[in-house]
């Protein structure tokens, strides 16, 4: 699917600051320990550090559970605290084998020197945020006090609160200014045109009561509800913002022979996706514990050319949910890979969240660009006025460029499992209702959004010739601008750098979360199918289609057991390699394929 339209996933003013190439070293001035330790030498270095931080109560064990795949293995989720306050993005996942540490992945911030006593009270923060958002807090225990690493290299004491307008705010607890805000809607957007429903017949697991049938699946261990807004914007808002789902929200049919394509596809596909995770990974539903699954279908007037997952405390019954709109001609955004993509966002949210206690991302990582750029014959030195009349944020006279690595990995994982689900239920091939490595090809009036096989075959921005990247060297990064109030932000339009080449694009895509997602998803393709990466020229010996499950296991293990709440492009490679060694062994064909594929895309 193409990137988000309109609403950025992340409207940052500041966030994690780290050099993307930094792994396993202390970075100055950000003072971040970005750990991806899997070798004996790395573990010998980092295991004592983690133990020391734990003894000093800078790290606290949040979760411990036995590995569901590898006997004898155990996973610990450790969260970072400063003066008893949680540190945003500071968490680790440590894997042990009968007490011996096997791997450590995550991030820990050092040198935090913020005053932990807030200058404004919780009630004052709540009032400020209610006035700002025009809504109320979504979680009863919000706002919560925490430490936030900011983009300009300092640490801020903030109140964090998710509001009913589906935005999470980070409010400075000393001066009451918004430091960061996150739009909680995870987009799956497409723009195009088509000619209507696919016309395939599929079974619906429904519930009969009162002489009608309702779109409530009671046959699967997790109840699955498909809600129909029926074009009612109040219902849409209620369900999106965490309001209660009521029986009249369910789609109904008088003879159980359903004709509303959006309801049919959403309901059946949500069930199929549940089946895939259960059968392939023994994972039960959104949260692995059979929490109710809610899908919401809405007409184009309410949700044009879009689908998204929204996490708790939003969505129906404040439990999160998948929302599906319609394309330009009314075709539902409920193709199987799109449905699986959105539900995978939920799986990632819950799997990482339950282990780390934190939401997965966003995780903006910074790098320094040139001191000036030339576009259309005009040179823009940094510190001059930006392209939208806003000054760029510069460091040492160089552009500060960011990309949301965690968001791109999140989107890549959703594309990966959207594709995996498609292969689980459709015969492989080309055309409608065939499994392939493109996203959204079965959306009847939208068309292909991204390609895992050949990312560059699909444009991000056709008029400017910007293509989806298949290698880390072709990633998109965006210049940071300073808002009038001094806050840092991404802008729309944005000054982006595509493989180092500056270009003005209409939208920053929340830091390139969709744009850069194809680097990881292309590695998934190469690990299965093999072939040559067009940018690096490296060849991968894939495991073959008959063994695709081996590669899917590796990626799923990374999500369920290993990803920290903030993860960089530099960390995802070591994590996946370790996951493959854990499951398949160091000398297996799968591990070789994973290693070659990750190397081929630059991870």
């Amino acid at each position: 699917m193409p990137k988000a339209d309109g609403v950025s996933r992340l409207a940052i003013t500041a966030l994690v600051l780290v050099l993307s190439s930094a792994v396993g070293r202390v970075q100055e001035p950000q003072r971040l320990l970005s750990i991806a330790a899997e070798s004996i030498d790395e573990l010998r270095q980092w295991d004592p550090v983690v133990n020391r931080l734990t003894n000093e109560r800078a790290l606290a064990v949040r979760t411990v559970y036995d590995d569901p795949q590898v006997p004898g293995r155990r996973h610990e989720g450790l969260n970072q605290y400063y003066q008893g306050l949680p540190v945003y993005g500071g968490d680790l996942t440590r894997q042990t084998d009968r007490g011996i540490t096997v791997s450590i992945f995550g991030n820990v911030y050092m040198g935090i020197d913020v005053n932990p006593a807030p200058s404004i009270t919780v009630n004052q923060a709540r009032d400020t945020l209610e006035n700002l958002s025009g809504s109320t807090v979504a979680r009863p225990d919000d706002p919560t006090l925490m430490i936030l690493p900011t983009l300009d290299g300092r640490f801020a004491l903030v109140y964090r609160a998710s509001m009913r307008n589906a935005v999470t705010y980070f409010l400075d607890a000393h001066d009451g200014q918004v430091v960061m805000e996150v739009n909680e809607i995870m987009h799956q957007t497409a723009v195009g045109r088509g000619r209507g429903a696919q016309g395939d017949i599929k079974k619906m697991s429904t519930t009969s009561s009162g002489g009608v049938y309702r779109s409530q699946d009671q046959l699967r261990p997790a109840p699955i509800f498909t809600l129909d807004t029926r074009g009612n914007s109040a219902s849409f808002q209620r369900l999106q913002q965490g309001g209660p789902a009521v029986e009249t929200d369910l789609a109904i049919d008088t003879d159980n022979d359903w004709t509303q394509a959006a309801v049919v596809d959403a309901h059946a596909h949500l069930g199929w996706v549940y089946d895939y995770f259960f059968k392939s990974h023994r994972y039960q539903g959104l949260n692995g514990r059979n929490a109710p699954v809610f899908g919401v279908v809405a007409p184009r007037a309410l949700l044009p050319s879009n689908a998204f997952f929204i996490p708790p405390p939003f969505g129906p019954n404040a439990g999160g949910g998948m929302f599906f709109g319609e394309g330009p001609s009314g075709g539902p955004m409920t193709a199987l890979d799109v449905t699986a993509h959105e539900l995978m966002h939920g799986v990632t949210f819950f799997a990482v969240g339950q282990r780390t206690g934190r939401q997965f991302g966003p995780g903006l990582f910074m790098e320094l660009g040139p001191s000036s750029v030339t576009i259309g014959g005009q040179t823009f030195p940094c510190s001059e006025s930006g392209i939208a009349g806003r000054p760029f944020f510069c460091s040492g006279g160089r552009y500060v460029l960011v990309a949301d690595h965690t968001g791109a990995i999140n989107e890549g994982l959703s594309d990966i499992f959207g594709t995996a689900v498609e292969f689980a239920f459709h015969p492989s091939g080309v055309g409608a209702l065939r499994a392939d490595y493109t996203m959204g090809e079965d959306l009847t009036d939208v068309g292909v959004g991204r390609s895992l096989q050949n990312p560059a075959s699909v444009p991000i921005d056709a008029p400017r010739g910007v293509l989806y990247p298949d290698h880390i060297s072709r990633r998109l990064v965006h210049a940071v601008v300073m808002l009038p109030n001094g806050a840092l932000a991404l802008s729309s339009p944005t000054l982006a750098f595509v493989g180092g080449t500056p270009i003005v694009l209409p939208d920053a895509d929340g830091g390139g979360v969709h744009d850069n997602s194809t680097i990881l998803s292309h590695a998934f393709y190469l690990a299965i199918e093999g072939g040559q990466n067009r940018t690096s020229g490296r060849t991968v010996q894939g495991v073959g289609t008959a063994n695709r499950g081996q590669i899917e296991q590796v990626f799923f293990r990374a999500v369920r057991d290993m990803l920290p709440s903030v993860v960089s492009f530099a960390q995802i490679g070591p994590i996946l390699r370790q996951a493959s060694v854990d499951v398949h062994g160091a000398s297996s064909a799968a591990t070789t394929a994973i290693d070659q594929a990750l190397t081929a895309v630059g991870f």
Partner: protein
Amino acid sequence: MRSTLVTGIAAAACLVMETPTLAQTGEPLRGFVSINGGYQASSTDFRDSIVFTEFVEQGSVDSSYTVKSGPQLDIAGGARVWRSLGIGVGITRFSKSGQASVAGKIPHPFFFNQPRSVEGEAGGLKREELAFHIQAMAIVPAGESLSLAVFAGPSFFNVKQGIVQKLQYSQQYPYDTATFSGVDTDTPSESTIGFNAGADVGYFFARHVGIGGVIRFSRASVDFTSIDGETLEADAGGVQAGAGLRLRF
């Protein structure tokens, strides 16, 4: 086959037109009664296929029935009508509990064209046959103490048969397999016409009383109606052999 047998028996009767008499008195034989405990020696097999709809898709149950041999009760009587020719009637009752091998294809609740196969055995399927035989008979003189008769004629069968109506199975998510747990059955009753032919031999140790044996072959085809409205065709009767009391007058 039926007409051939009748013709053969009639021919035999023509060859023995001498009037049979009671032993020791020389009085002409007027009639007889036989009571036999016997054994229906032949088993019969038949099949049924039921189509049903579940989870908005058609499934099927194929049942292979076997009715094995078993004991029967046979009562017959007759009268001489002219010289060596007579008529008789007989009743046989056969009852046996049978079984069926059941193989089903049960639709998947979530997916078309992914049926789950189940197999099992259904027991306690009762077969009851009550046959009323009308017989033309030729009584063959064979000495004062022996009697021999051959007979043939139509038979009227009433057959009850336990048949499988519905498959019972257990399943659990993800429903990719199902386990046979039993069947629902019905025991319909149908009547039909067939034929019988056989021979009866008696040894009389007293004027009116003796012992004897009978061998009979009876056959009829009976049609039951399956739960899906289709016809289930089964055979009734078979080779029957018995022995018991003989009375003559």
